[in-house]
Structures are given as C-alpha cells and as structure tokens.
C-alpha cells in the first residue's frame, strides 16, 4: 500500500530511513504503516472525518516516547498523541499527516498509595481499568465522562463527567504529570514523584498541561487523586412539568447544601429516546436523574431534603433505588443517551454540543435553546450535568442532507455564542479540538490567545505537537 510522503526531504529512502529509526526504538511490532491501523488512529468519536497519520508508533516506555519524539523533532514531523480515541472534538485527526503516538502499550498502574489516596497511571490505563484494579482497596477515581477513556487522555482534555458536581473535574484531580515535549525532553510538572495534597511551589505547570489536548506535550504518566468508595449510593428520578421547574430544583438543591454526587437533566425528547432504546417507561417530561453518595444514615436526610425541593417545584413521580441492579438500570439510560439519541433516526450521525454557563443562568439558556431547536426543525435531545451548568444537545443529523448539516452548524454556533453572552464557555468538557478554535478566540479574547500562543511557542517552537488544534 502507498505511504503518503512524510514531510521530510525528498531524497529517496528518507521515509524508509525514518521508519527504520522508529523501528530501532520500538522494535518491529512498534511501528505500523498499514492503512487500517492508520485510519483507526485518525478518527475519534466526533463527526470530524478521519484524518489518518502517515505512521503509527507504539512506544512501550517513556524512554521510547522520548526517543521517538527526538526523531520526529529532527525531521520536523507532526506528533499526535493517541489514548483511546474516545474524544468528541476531532483532537486526534492528523491534519498535516505525521506520526501518531499510540500509547496503549504503556498500560501499567504504578505507585498506588492507599493511605494517601493517590495513584500514578500510564496512558494505556483507562478509567474503568483503574477502578477495577482498585476495587478491593475501597478507593475509586470518580471522574466519569461516560466513555472508558484513557486517564492521561482525560487529563489532556480536562475531562469531566456526571460526578463533577461532587468530585470535581480532571483539573482538580491531577496532582502531577510526566510529559514528553516535542524535542524529547521528559518533564515532571510538579517534580518527580511528588504527590503532596497541596502546594504553593512555583507556577502550576501541571494544570497548564491539563486541557492542552496534546498541543504542548505527550502525557506519559498522571498522578491522580483517589476518593473513598461511598458506603451507600442512592439513585433517584423525578419528572417535572417544565424545563424551568427542573432547573430551578437543581439550583435550589445545590443552594441547600445537599452534597449531591450526580444531578443530570434529560429533556422530554431525550427521555422518549431512552425509553424506546432501553424499554423503560419514564414519564415523557423534563426529568432529573439524581445520585446521592454517603453513609447510610446521611442518605435519608439527603433524599428527604431533595424530595421536598422537587415537590415544591411541581416535581412528581419521585422514585429512588438503593440496590445496585435498579440503580444500574436508571443510570444505564443516561449513559446510553448517546446511542439512544442516534437510534431516534437510524442511519444518522450524532454530534454533541457542550456549553457551560453559571448555574443561575441555566434555565434561561436551556429554554432559549429548546425554542431554537423547535424553530429550526432540528433533532436535539438534551442531556446535561446541570449541577455544573453544563449541558449537551445531542444533535442527530443526516450527514447527506447538506441543508440540515448547515442548519446544525449554525445552531451550534448560535448556542456557543449564547453561552458566551451569559458569562459561560463554548466547551464545558469536550475541549476545543478542531472545531472550536474561533470560539476560543471569542471566549478568552485576543490578548489571552496571544499569551497561549506564547506558551505554545516556548514549549513547542516547531509546532509539531498536534498542529491545527486548540490555537
């Protein structure tokens, strides 16, 4: 098969020599130019089309990552780090070709410190993999973006999820990173092996890399904060007569100081899709899915305070479950929302919007957004982490209907700008990736963009790290 020419000099054998030097680092099995493998590493779970790299390498250690990066740096080859390919913003597309660093062979859980509740993981360790590993220790890593994503990938995209309202996002839970820069330098952002609970030492380089989406360096280790598995978990569902009342309840539950672990909003369109997909029978109305974590004694108080608030806001059918199986069924509906939405119109693709606003403005933005959807005849069931003011419209569209594609695109731009007008952000958790670079500029302003570009130029002067993303 043909290998697209890499951005190296045009001498014959230059491409072969680069590949040969990759093989010298990783061994023969660590380099692939097969078309299927390259295509697999050129797409994620977004709507952006596949942009395969020229070659995929599979390093087994940070030394190999550094060695490969040095070769790429010497030959000016773009470097695209790849975790599990579960991103939603096209972050892994190799726009300028180059070398995809698939990190899946680095899959060890290192350095678990039970009493300090911290653990260090390599990029091949996924969220569910880590929690399965930890299951006998009474600890878990609660950040849950839905997909079984690479934890280092989650750090790279500053992922969040249904639990953020109680446990925070990756920003709050990454204590230290080992990063390889474009020139092969290995960096320990908080100092090698360090894991104090808090620090005032110097610039916060760890959080600089969290959310950098592979544009500043390749994350090869992440030290994460762990939490105790809650003694008791109770899930509840409540439907509401209107979006406003559901969101008002959310705001009041948080203001009441209930340490709620998950508070998810599904609109009527989404509930209908979930019912059909999973054979459930919820009332087709705006609905809140709630989850409480804590000691068995505190459960009663949390649930009763919450039930009262929902009742005062016109909520009905407040149902709750404590046993694992029923709770699993309740939450399966929410986690399958992506597939349930797509199943509404088989053959269509799904695209998720992702804005976040201050919680007090959430009712307004959701109501305005739903009106926009209806006015423009778009299928966009809404699911959201309303406890953070973050919601997703799961746009279901026929990629061959160019008019619809255009309407969806215009809608998402309007939605992002609506959020920006309300002191919010154009991306709550999915990242900027390929499609939101202009919105980022609008969001932070040209001066801050210049600062970001300055940092990028310092850490990656040749612009080899995932070019074409974020900035």
């Amino acid at each position, binding site marked *: 098969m043909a290998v697209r020419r890499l951005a190296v000099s045009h001498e014959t054998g230059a491409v072969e020599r680069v590949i040969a030097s990759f093989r010298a680092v990783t061994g023969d099995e660590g380099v692939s130019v097969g078309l299927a493998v390259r295509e697999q590493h050129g797409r994620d779970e977004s709507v952006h089309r596949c942009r395969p790299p020229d070659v995929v390498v599979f390093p087994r250690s940070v030394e190999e990552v550094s060695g490969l990066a040095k070769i790429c740096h010497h030959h000016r080859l773009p470097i695209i780090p790849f975790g599990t390919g579960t991103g939603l913003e096209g972050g892994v597309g190799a726009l300028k070709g180059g070398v995809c660093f698939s990190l899946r062979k680095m899959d*060890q*859980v*290192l*350095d*678990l*410190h*039970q*009493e300090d509740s911290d653990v260090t993981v390599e990029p091949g360790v996924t969220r569910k*993999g880590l929690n*399965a*590993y930890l*299951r*006998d*220790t*009474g*600890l*878990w890593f609660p950040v849950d973006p839905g997909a079984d994503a690479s934890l280092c990938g989650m750090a790279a995209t500053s992922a969040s999820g249904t639990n953020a309202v109680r446990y925070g996002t990756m920003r709050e839970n990454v204590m230290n990173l080992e990063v390889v820069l474009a020139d092969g330098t290995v960096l320990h952002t908080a100092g*090698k*092996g360090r894991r104090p609970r808090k620090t005032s030492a110097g610039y916060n380089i760890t959080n600089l890399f969290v959310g950098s989406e592979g544009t500043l360096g390749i994350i090869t280790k992440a030290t994460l904060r762990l939490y*105790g*598995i*809650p*003694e008791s978990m109770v899930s509840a569902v409540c439907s509401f007569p209107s979006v406003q009342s559901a969101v008002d309840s959310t705001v009041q539950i948080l203001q009441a100081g209930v340490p709620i672990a998950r508070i998810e909003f599904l609109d009527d369109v989404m509930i209908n899709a979930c019912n059909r997909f999973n054979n459930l029978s919820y009332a087709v109305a705006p609905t809140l899915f709630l989850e409480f974590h804590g*000691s068995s004694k505190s459960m009663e108080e949390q649930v009763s305070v919450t039930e009262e608030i929902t009742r005062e806001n016109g909520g009905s059918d407040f149902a709750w479950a404590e046993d*694992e*199986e029923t709770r*699993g069924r309740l939450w399966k509906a929410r986690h399958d929302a992506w597939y349930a939405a797509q199943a509404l119109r088989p053959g269509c693709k799904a695209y998720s919007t992702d804005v976040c606003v201050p919680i007090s403005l959430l009712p307004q933005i959701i109501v305005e957004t739903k009106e926009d959807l209806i006015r423009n005849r778009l299928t966009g069931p809404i699911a959201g982490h309303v406890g953070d003011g973050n919601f997703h419209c799961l746009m279901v569209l026929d990629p061959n209907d160019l008019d619809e594609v255009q309407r969806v695109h215009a809608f998402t731009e309007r939605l992002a700008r609506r959020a920006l007008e309300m002191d919010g952000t154009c991306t709550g958790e999915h990242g900027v990736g390929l499609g939101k670079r202009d919105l980022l500029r609008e969001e932070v302003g040209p001066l801050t963009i210049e600062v970001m570009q300055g940092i990028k130029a310092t850490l990656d002067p040749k612009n080899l790290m995932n070019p074409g993303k974020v900035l």
Partner: protein
Amino acid sequence: MSARVLVGVKRVIDYAVKIRVKPDHTGVVTDGVKHSMNPFCEIAVEEAVKLKEKKLVKEVVAVSCGPQQAQGKEIDLQIISNKRMTVGFILQETIRTALAMGADRGIHVEVSGKDYETLGPLQVSKILAALAKKEEANLIILGKQAIDDDCNQTGQMTAALLDWPQGTFASEVTMDRDMLKVVREIDGGLETIKIKMPAVLTADLRLNTPRYATLPNIMKAKKKKITTVKPGDLGVDVSSRLEVLNVEEPPQRLAGVKVETVDDLVGKLKEAGKI
C-alpha cells in the same frame, strides 16, 4: 433458620493481568503479579452476605487456603515511588476482602510451599468437608470454578465427600426454611431444582453483582477474627496425586494469506491437506 454458611474464597491472579508462562515451563509467572479474589468467589460471598441480610442465615464464615505471610503480619500496601510493582495482596487480604463485604469471620487454612503449588480441588474439598463438620455449617457456597485452573470440581467433590445435595451453576437461589430452590444455568437453558439443606451451592456469573468493599467496611473488617488451622489438624493429607509436566503458551496465531482467485484458494487448501 439458624444456618451457618461457609464460603470458600480463592486467591488467584487478577483477571485483568496478561498471563506469562515461566521460562522453565513449569507454570505461570506469579511473583510481583497482581492477585485478587476469584470473581466467582466474590459472587459466592455476595450471595452469602445477602442471605445474612435477609436474616435467613446467622453467620457467614470465609475460608481460604494458602501460605502464611513471612513475618506473620499483613504486608503494608505502600509502594516505593517509581518502583514498577503492581499491588500484591497476600492470602489474608483475600479473607479480609470477604470480611469487608460482610462475612463475619475468617478461617485461614495454612498450606505453604510445594503443597500450595500443587493444591487442587480434591485436597480443598477434603478441607472444606472437614471444616463444614467442625464448624457445623449447613450451607457451603463456592464459586463455580477458579479462573486460574478452570477446574469446576471443588463444589461437586465437597458435596460428594459430605454426601450433601448440590446446586451448581446457580443463577438464582431462594431459601425457604431448610429447602433451597436453585435455578441452574445449563447448556440447554435453565433448570430449577429443589434441594434440602445441608447442601453445597456453586455460584455462576448471573447470580448477583458483588458489592465493592468500602473504606469504612475495610476498617471494620480489620477487627473481625481470622483463625488459622493446618490441614493436619483437620485430618487432611494435602499431597497431590497430579504432576504438572509442562506449561506452554497457546501457539502463535499465524498471519492469513490473501489469494486472488478461487483456483488459488482451492490450490492452497489442497496444499494444506484440508481438502
């Protein structure tokens, strides 16, 4: 019903670990490799604890066979930074996990060295039978098989030694006084049987979803009692009648070959002696 349940739990290599065969082909690499409770044993513990929560049994006793830790105290799980070591749980930790899930006390049957390496279903079933008599248990719940040897024999042998009825591959268990209704997963579908206690059950995958051990329960488990006994005290001889001759990895999968025409395909199949 004042039943006492004995639950057997086995410490095995964790299901997520990539198994490697030792260079001398005598077995698989176990040093430094993560171990945990056999998943079917977790299901067995969960079922026993559920029965206790429903007040159908009064005590759950977790039993495991294996070596005593060298210094006689639990290994601290702290790992020195940068040392690439996966977390190793020693046998007592397997029993402690069962205690954290809700078992009341534990029994550690000490089997070390060569005896531990060759310990198999026949010896374990003799041990469990002896313990069942000693502890006056009315019910033994085991996992249907261990994920390291896949023997699927211990439950059946234990029942035979005790001359107790058995409900194996259980996917649903209902207790009514001294009768057990067991729904079993069999090749043809589901079979429902009724057996009288005392009896042996082995747990299949769909029997339940085991609970996680939470930190508070792990703390409480440290105070629960684990007694140690030797097989000799139970009158059991653990010497093995089996000898492992060789352990090998499955053969490497060969690459496929693409052919251009049907004639080529037929030719290749003939070459390989397939037709």
